[in-house]
């Protein structure tokens, strides 16, 4: 028998239904893989006992023919999702030891459908970062390496643990979150598929908030079909989140393999940024050719406010973060550092509890919301956000079904290589992904090839609001046309 961890989620699901092996066998194989991969630092908390108990319950349901859509499927949960009675840290010292007495809606949806939890995955602290280097619990090491070079590489971020664990075959899929690219960029860096659905598609209830008008939950998986299966379980209306939208969740898996005939794919000229590498541009051109060959119509489009998106994001996101993170004050949960009075206690607690990147963003956010600067920065950024959204509405109104762009400006980089001198250098990782969050649209990253150094590169598709199905259809077409990206063989 091949190693059970080599299967795809869909294959494992079908094999469990046929009773080729048990959910407990499958859980044991993954618990073993997780324990053997501690060098990658993917997990902050492992939950092997819970995994085996859930798997035993899955076997009982499967035996009775009552298995759910994800029955017995081992998954990792980003440690930004609150999980009942299991430590939830947001990769921050300030939340170390916090054990929620409740379950996030999205993870609860996964357990409802039969999934099995292997543990809580590492991330950038409070999801602020593009390399997983800001975690209080240490960086995640990518399972990928440059050809013939053992330099440890970042898996991307903020969902770095999720992407690395899926690429290293520690789990069939993982939950992730995306505020400016935190699902799509790590997926692109690790040769996995990641989708950020439309804002409102998944409930944010029970997910530690970073920037509430940008945050959205989504899955990372090993292929488009597996991502579609996971999103169907994760998505849905939730009365506990007033921004969650009450629209039916389609069977996304049915969209995989659909025809591209008659589909119009937009190619935005503004994404051809100055200094784009020949490798990334070449991949993009290759993607255009694949979609054309598959029967799509390719249309040159313009999204004129693209170049302002990243700057506007670095006002809106820190502003919302400064407000959301005000709750960490050493009173109701998490770390407390004593002070000479209550104000000093707040200040000492927050100084000790937040890492440098989080502190920087809270301070920028505080500044742009402060008296005298609010209109010049925050209100202006929100107006520009309206213009960015309008650009997309215009092209969709003109009949574009999806937009094809590169996912990242480069392949994965080495740990410690970027951003230590200038925070902007790290922020530029999100240049292709951040517009999607600003406009609330769905976006998917699909592996499309390897760099000259043998590292995965991804393409991004941007869709109409609540039309994730087209992204799965077109994403599957790219996956079918692209040379298969073989995940790294185990060295850890």
């Amino acid at each position, binding site marked *: 028998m091949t190693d059970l961890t080599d299967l795809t989620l869909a294959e494992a699901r079908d094999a469990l239904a046929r009773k080729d092996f048990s959910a407990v066998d499958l859980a044991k194989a993954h618990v073993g893989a997780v324990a053997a991969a501690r060098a990658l630092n993917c997990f902050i908390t492992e939950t092997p006992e819970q995994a085996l108990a859930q798997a035993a319950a899955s076997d009982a349901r499967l035996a009775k023919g009552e298995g759910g859509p994800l029955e017995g499927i081992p998954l990792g949960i980003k440690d930004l999702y609150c999980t009942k009675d299991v430590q939830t840290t947001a990769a921050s010292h300030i939340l170390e030891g916090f054990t929620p007495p409740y379950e996030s809606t999205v993870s609860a949806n996964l357990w409802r459908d039969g999934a099995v939890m292997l543990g809580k995955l590492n991330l950038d602290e409070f999801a602020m970062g593009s390399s997983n280097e800001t975690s209080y619990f240490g960086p995640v090491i990518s399972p990928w390496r440059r050809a013939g070079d053992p330099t440890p590489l970042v898996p991307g971020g903020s969902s770095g643990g999720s992407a690395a664990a899926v690429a290293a075959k520690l789990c069939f899929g993982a939950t992730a979150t995306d505020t400016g690219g935190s699902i799509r960029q790590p997926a692109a860096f690790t040769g996995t598929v990641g989708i950020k659905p439309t804002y409102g598609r998944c409930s944010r209830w029970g997910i530690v908030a970073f920037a509430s008008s940008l945050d959205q939950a989504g899955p990372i998986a090993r292929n488009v079909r597996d991502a579609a299966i996971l999103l169907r379980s994760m998505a849905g209306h939730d009365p506990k989140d007033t921004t969650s939208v009450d629209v039916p969740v389609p069977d996304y898996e049915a969209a995989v393999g659909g025809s591209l005939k008659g589909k119009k794919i937009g190619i935005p000229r503004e994404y051809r940024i100055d200094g784009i590498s020949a490798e990334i541009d070449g991949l993009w051109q290759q993607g255009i050719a694949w979609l054309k060959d598959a029967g799509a119509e390719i249309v040159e489009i313009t999204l004129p406010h693209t170049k302002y998106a990243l700057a506007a994001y670095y006002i809106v996101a820190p502003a919302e973060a400064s407000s959301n993170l005000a709750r960490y004050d050493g009173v109701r949960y998490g770390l407390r550092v004593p002070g000479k009075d209550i104000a000093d206690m707040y*200040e000492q607690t927050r100084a000790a509890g937040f890492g440098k990147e989080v502190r920087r963003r809270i301070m920028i956010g505080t500044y742009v919301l402060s008296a005298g600067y609010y209109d010049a920065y925050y209100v202006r950024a929100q107006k*520009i956000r309206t213009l960015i959204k309008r650009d997309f509405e215009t092209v969709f109104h003109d009949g574009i079904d999806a937009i094809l762009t590169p996912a990242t400006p480069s392949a994965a980089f080495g740990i410690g290589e970027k951003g230590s001198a200038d925070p902007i250098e790290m*922020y530029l990782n999100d240049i292709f992904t951040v517009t999607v969050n600003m406009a609330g649209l769905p976006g998917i990253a699909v592996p499309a090839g390897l760099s000259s150094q043998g590292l995965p590169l991804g393409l991004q598709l941007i869709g109409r609001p609540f039309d994730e199905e087209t992204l799965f259809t077109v994403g599957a077409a790219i996956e079918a046309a692209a040379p298969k990206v073989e995940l790294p063989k185990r060295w850890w």
Partner: protein
Amino acid sequence: MSVDQATVKRIAHLARIAVRDEEIGVLQGELNAILAFVETLGEVDVEGVEPMTSVMPMPMKKRKDIVTEGNIADLITQNAPGTEDHFFVVPKVIE
């Protein structure tokens, strides 16, 4: 626009984060790098543009003003660093 060291201290205090004196200069440099980066937004004509207030436009959802999950004071206080009889304990606020 850029910030001076007094402003950095004021922001830190507004954000309720203690900052050591030797960190002020570094923070000033980082904040000014970000402020310089966002300067480009000044060139956009935003005359007559409404600021975005709702990502997906929809009517505000409402619910009945009733207790949904009550009597869980144990759960609410279980993670607090200091509690007494379901109260959060903090340093003395009034002398």
